[in-house]
């Protein structure tokens, strides 16, 4: 089962991805207007705030001027009037008193005279009327402690010859309050000359201005303040600022921008300036200021910059929330919509899974609309129907096929059962055969069986065609071969008779290429007949490869009464006869190349020294390797037969000496000399030397006297193998009559009484008694005796 992540299914779904895509797009689109809007808003807000501040400044200044105008106008008028000598001072004083009673800001007035001018006896004369607790009080100023001639309000108008606003001061002698005095010089004609006679003052309470200034309300913490010409702070809602000088404040580390702004303000300019703050060091603010006419005062409004944008920030916060909520709503909406749209696809997927698991009747979701999903669903429906009927057909054909296949399997078992295996050959023969059918049953065949104790019949064949017909024909051929072989006919007659039988009942004109051989197991001679079959190979021990390129007649089953010849081949020791069918050479690989005769030949060469079983298996493996990825097109059959040389030693001698003798008794001297020579060389004990001497003499003389039918000279070969210091092997080879000394019964030679005693057989008896191992082989026309002596 496939592992799924149900919790992440939603995230991987179309709905989520599309929604996310839309949202990102919308956010990108909306981001730019938002940023630009923010920039514009800031600029507009700044302009608006500046205008507002400027207007408020001017309005407040106008308010001050409204208050101060009568305060200036009334004394000016009175002083003008006093130029006329007919107007009495008392009259002026009375009008001034009336004025202060009616004016809310002016609380005192004083008419101060030059020394001795009003009264010849009085140095100081300055009647002062003032309001206190709503009542008018009169006091005459001027004394040793209060010498008003030294006061600014008196001194300055006299010096400047014009009305003057004094700096704010706290007058304890007069009004006992923080105030400003408007002081106007008085001139009269004395002795025809316009002479300064004193001043008329109007005391203005600054508490009234504080009220106006304190009522200034701009932004959250914005405030106003009033400063004098000298920079003294007349009034401000900030208590820390009161009674201080604005210049001191500006200089006290408030930053250059603040200093510039204050300088401009005290010069009487009307502006709005950017600065670092006044009452605290780091509070970037705007300062709007304007002069109050005549007084030399200046009014300023301060408001922190950040408050200017407070509203903007609030708005922005609100907008962000709105934006976020909208995005969320949009996300939910798009997910909802896309899920609705993809739901049919999801259902279709579920159904497809069911179909995939084999439920062909799974209901497809019903779609009435004509959109793409509906079309897909309908197409799926059609596919489902076709799949259902296809599977149904497949089941039927499979059942039928399985039946045939099981029958074919039985046929295959029968066919394979007919082929012999596990064959018991004589010691010096080695035989192995295999048949690998292309389909369950095939048209190849091989066979081998004993005709009698000494004769082995081997056969290989290939029926033209494949499958059941070929296999039937093959079985017929094989059965006929066995049947005919019992008649012990010569091979060529056997073949003719086989051919005639196969031709008789052969409506389909089938034929079989066939190679049959009869091997004389003793002599190693094979008589064979090749009826159109592949040429067999002869593989020599040294890897040399020959082919028996002989045709002895047509393939079997073509023409009745065809004649067949036979050929004889005499095996040499260690040779392997390899017979194959064209299933090997015709094997194809992926690139459509044949395995081919050359490949077979070269591969066989590499198999020299193998036994028949491994040779066969390696060759089959090579063909399989070659044709990897392709279907085996034809049966592959191999039959290999080896004529072994049993006496060939597996353990190689350390030294070997050869001696070749003529079949004459006189040669015994050479034999003796050789034995003596080797005995010394190999340090053989005297007793063993004598035994070897005796055994060889016996066998040699035996051959000389009884070994040959003719009187021709023959060669007897003797090999001396020094295996190790305790083992010697002697090999005798002659081309005389077959003589297997192992078969000679010498058991009773020595038990005979004297009269019956024969000397014959005693030599063989010596051999058997003195040697540890005796082996004999008739190889071709030669007797080979191998003796082993262990000491």
């Amino acid at each position, binding site marked *: 089962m496939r592992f799924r992540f149900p919790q992440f299914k939603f995230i991987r779904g179309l709905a989520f991805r599309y929604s996310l895509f839309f949202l990102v797009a919308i956010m990108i689109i909306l981001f730019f207007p938002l940023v630009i809007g923010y920039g514009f808003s800031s600029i507009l807000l700044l302009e608006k705030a500046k205008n507002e501040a400027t207007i408020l400044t001017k309005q407040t200044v106008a308010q001050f001027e409204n208050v101060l105008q009568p305060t200036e106008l009334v004394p000016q008028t009175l002083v003008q009037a006093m130029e006329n000598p007919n107007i009495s001072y008392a009259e002026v004083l009375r009008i001034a008193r009336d004025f202060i009673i009616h004016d809310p800001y002016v609380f005192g007035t004083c008419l101060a005279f030059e020394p001795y001018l009003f009264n010849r006896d009085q140095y100081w004369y300055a009647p002062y009327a003032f309001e206190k607790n709503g009542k008018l009080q009169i006091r005459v100023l001027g004394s040793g402690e209060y010498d008003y001639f030294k006061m600014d309000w008196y001194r300055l108008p006299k010096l400047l010859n014009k009305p003057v606003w004094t700096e704010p001061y706290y007058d304890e002698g007069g009004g006992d309050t923080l105030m400003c005095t408007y002081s106007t010089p008085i001139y009269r004609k004395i002795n025809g000359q316009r002479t300064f006679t004193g001043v008329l003052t109007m005391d203005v309470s600054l508490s009234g201005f504080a009220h106006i200034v304190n009522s200034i309300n701009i932004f959250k913490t914005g405030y106003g303040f009033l400063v004098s010409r000298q920079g003294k702070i007349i009034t401000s809602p900030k208590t820390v600022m009161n009674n201080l000088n604005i210049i001191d404040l500006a200089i006290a580390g408030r930053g250059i921008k603040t200093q510039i702004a204050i300088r401009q303000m005290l010069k009487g300019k009307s502006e709005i300036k950017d600065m670092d703050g006044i009452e605290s060091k780091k509070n970037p603010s705007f300062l709007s200021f304007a002069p109050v006419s005549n007084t030399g005062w200046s009014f300023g409004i301060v408001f922190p910059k950040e408050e200017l944008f407070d509203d903007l920030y609030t708005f922005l916060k609100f907008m962000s929330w709105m934006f976020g909520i909208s995005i969320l709503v949009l996300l939910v909406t798009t997910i909802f919509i896309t899920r609705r749209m993809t739901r049919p696809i999801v259902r279709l997927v579920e159904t497809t899974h069911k179909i995939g698991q084999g439920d062909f009747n799974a209901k497809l979701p019903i779609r009435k609309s004509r959109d793409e999903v509906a079309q897909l669903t309908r197409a799926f429906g059609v596919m489902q129907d076709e799949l259902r009927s296809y599977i149904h057909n497949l089941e039927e054909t499979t059942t039928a096929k399985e039946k045939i296949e099981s029958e074919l399997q039985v046929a295959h078992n029968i066919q394979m059962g007919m082929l012999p295996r596990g064959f018991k050959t004589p010691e010096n023969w080695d035989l192995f055969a295999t048949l690998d059918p292309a389909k369950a049953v095939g048209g190849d065949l091989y066979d081998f069986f004993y005709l009698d104790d000494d004769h082995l019949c081997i056969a290989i064949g290939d029926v033209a065609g494949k499958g059941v017909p070929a296999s039937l024909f093959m079985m017929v051929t094989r059965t006929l071969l066995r049947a005919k072989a019992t008649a012990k006919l010569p091979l060529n007659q056997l073949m003719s008779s086989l051919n005639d039988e196969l031709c008789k009942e052969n409506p389909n004109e089938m034929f079989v290429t066939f190679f049959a051989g009869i091997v004389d197991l003793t002599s190693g001679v094979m008589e064979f007949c090749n009826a159109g079959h592949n040429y067999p190979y002869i593989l020599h021990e040294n890897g040399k490869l020959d082919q028996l390129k002989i045709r002895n007649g047509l393939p079997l089953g073509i023409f009745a009464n065809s004649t067949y010849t036979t050929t004889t081949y005499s095996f040499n020791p260690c040779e392997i006869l390899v017979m194959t069918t064209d299933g090997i050479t015709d094997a194809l690989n992926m690139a459509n190349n044949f395995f081919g005769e050359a490949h077979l030949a070269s591969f066989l060469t590499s198999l020299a020294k193998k036994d028949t079983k491994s040779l066969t298996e390696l060759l089959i493996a090579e063909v399989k390797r070659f044709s990897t990825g392709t279907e085996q097109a034809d049966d592959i059959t191999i039959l290999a037969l080896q004529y072994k040389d049993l006496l060939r030693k597996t353990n190689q001698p350390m030294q070997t000496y050869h001696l070749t003798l003529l079949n004459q*008794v*006189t040669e*015994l*001297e050479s034999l*003796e000399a050789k034995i003596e020579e080797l005995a010394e060389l190999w340090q053989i004990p*005297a*007793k063993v030397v*004598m035994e070897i*001497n*005796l055994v060889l*003499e*016996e066998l040699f*003389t035996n051959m000389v006297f009884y070994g040959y039918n003719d009187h021709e000279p023959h060669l007897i070969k003797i090999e001396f193998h020094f295996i190790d210091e305790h083992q010697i092997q002697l090999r005798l080879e002659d081309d005389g009559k077959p003589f297997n000394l192992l078969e000679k019964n010498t058991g009773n*030679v*020595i*038990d005979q009484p*004297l*009269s019956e*005693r024969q*000397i014959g057989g*005693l*030599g063989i*008896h*010596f051999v058997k*008694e*003195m040697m540890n191992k005796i082996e004999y082989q008739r190889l071709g026309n030669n007797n080979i005796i191998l003796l082993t002596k262990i000491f």
Partner: protein
Amino acid sequence: MELFEEKTDKCVVVGISGRLDTTNYSVLEKRLMDLIDNRHDRIMVECSRMDYVSSSGLRILLMALKKISLAKGKFVLCGLQENIREIFEISGFTSIFEIYHDKEEAYKVF
């Protein structure tokens, strides 16, 4: 092979020295047959210097034994070397021939 012959009043002593094999057995054969043909039926074969014998040589000894036995004579062997004695044992000749350790011992039976 060399042969030595010594005629005493009791018997004829034939000494064999060297190899007795297929190449020279006929020499021994002729000597022994001559003696038997000349009515010498008491023969002692002294083998102390014979160091090799093959079945061809044994055949001559067997032949001589058979002939002398028929003539009721006496044919004995003596002085066999160890190796030669083994060959006699293998061939079963020790049960057929009268074999003595040395010449002195053999004399006593005549």
